[in-house]
């Protein structure tokens, strides 16, 4: 069965290591914060100017001056620090953030990503995504394997305007965990009960399947 958004987040959370500084994008990536493994200490960076993001506030304790990059009300944890947007992207750009998780409309087998615009139809803007993908050492894309029309989002070549080139290392979808490997997608894990054939059929880009592909565990 395909993973739901929560499970995608849960699987990505397994990539976290102790001491990591992590930037979580809007949407599914935000949910990763809920599944940080026990014994692992990570510090969440929010590019609007915060290190040490905590959970959502209790009802009635929302502070309009304290939001995350998704404009959601949040809290801080002990040891947090505020800074301006220039310094925030300064630490991103200088490689101090260990892991970035973000969403995408399309990813291709060279590691390019498209996520901010459908020409003539929809413009979200790149926000901080272009800076993040151009800077982070370690980027995971969290997205559905196909779009609403059932078309693959893992392509030979992105069709939409790019957010960044050759930057994505790993992709976690509702169907699979894949890595970008020498210009191809390499299948690492599959969702429980989802067959390699199904993943193959829903992946437009070249797919490497080597040996037995284990099921995703949490």
């Amino acid at each position, binding site marked *: 069965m395909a993973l739901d958004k929560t499970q995608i987040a849960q699987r990505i959370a397994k990539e976290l290591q102790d001491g990591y500084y992590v930037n979580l994008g809007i949407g599914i990536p935000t949910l990763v914060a809920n599944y940080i493994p026990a014994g692992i200490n990570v510090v969440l960076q*929010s*590019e*609007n*100017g*915060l290190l040490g993001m905590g*959970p*959502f*506030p*209790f*009802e*009635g*304790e*929302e*502070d*309009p*001056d*304290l*939001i*995350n*990059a*998704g*404009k*959601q*009300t*949040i809290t801080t944890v002990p040891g947090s620090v*505020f*800074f*301006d*947007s*220039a310094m*925030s*992207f*300064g630490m*991103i*750009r200088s490689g101090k953030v260990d892991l970035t998780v973000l969403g995408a409309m399309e990813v291709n087998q060279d590691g*390019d990503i498209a996520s*901010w615009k459908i020409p*003539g*139809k*929809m*413009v*979200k*803007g*790149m*926000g*901080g*995504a*272009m*800076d993040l993908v*151009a*800077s982070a050492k370690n980027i995971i894309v969290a997205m559905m394997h196909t779009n609403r029309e059932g078309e693959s989002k893992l392509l030979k070549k992105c069709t939409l*305007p*790019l*957010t*960044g*080139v*050759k930057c994505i290392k790993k992709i976690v979808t509702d169907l699979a965990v894949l890595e970008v490997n020498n210009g191809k997608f390499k299948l690492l894990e599959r969702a429980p009960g989802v067959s390699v054939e199904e993943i193959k059929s829903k992946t437009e880009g070249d797919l490497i399947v080597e040996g037995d592909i284990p099921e995703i565990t949490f």
Partner: protein
Amino acid sequence: MNKVRKNAIEATFDIKDGCTIMLGGFGLCGIPENLISALVEMNVKNLTCISNNAGVDDFGIGLMLQKKQLKKMIASYVGENAEFERQLLSGELEVELIPQGTLATRCMAAGYGMPAVFTPAGVGTEVAEGKEVRNFDGKDYLLETALKADFALVKAWKGDTHGNLIFKETARNFNPVMAMAGNITIAEVEELVPAGELNPDHIHTPGIYVHRIFKGVNYEKRIEQRTVRKK
């Protein structure tokens, strides 16, 4: 050297049609509410606005979009702002989208007297079109120029009569870098104190960057995405 003004209207008297203005804030957090109201009230037209976002349909810069006061918007994110997206797609509004970090850095470059800097964001994308690309240590970067404005409008938590500013939490965001990039910088603050009352180690924006300051009123501080958990 008297930087103190009575209110937003008095502070913005010389913002005329066709000016370029920079506005601090991220979403609706830390936006200069009083200054935006003044611009809406004065109905200044043909503005070029530089701000990370364009507010929401009925608040923040969205109010100026509704009244068609903007000729051009320079921002990083449209998001869920329907009116902004509509004017953009229809071509009514000229829009330049800039990566968020590049936007912040270009403002800072202005405030730091650096006419141009190299940054990696947007290499290989349409953002790179027409820009110099240079490789440093095996990685490509774009040459990005400093971004200035006729007026920078910022919102701080506390300020003093010398124009020194202290921001609160994530309401800081673009405010300090934009404060440095205005030919004239106008700050509205929730609390205005006499010079000497702020701890000089706690000030985020030195008064040398701020030309006019006033105590704002009636802050609405609207929340865009109220998210809570149960007790």
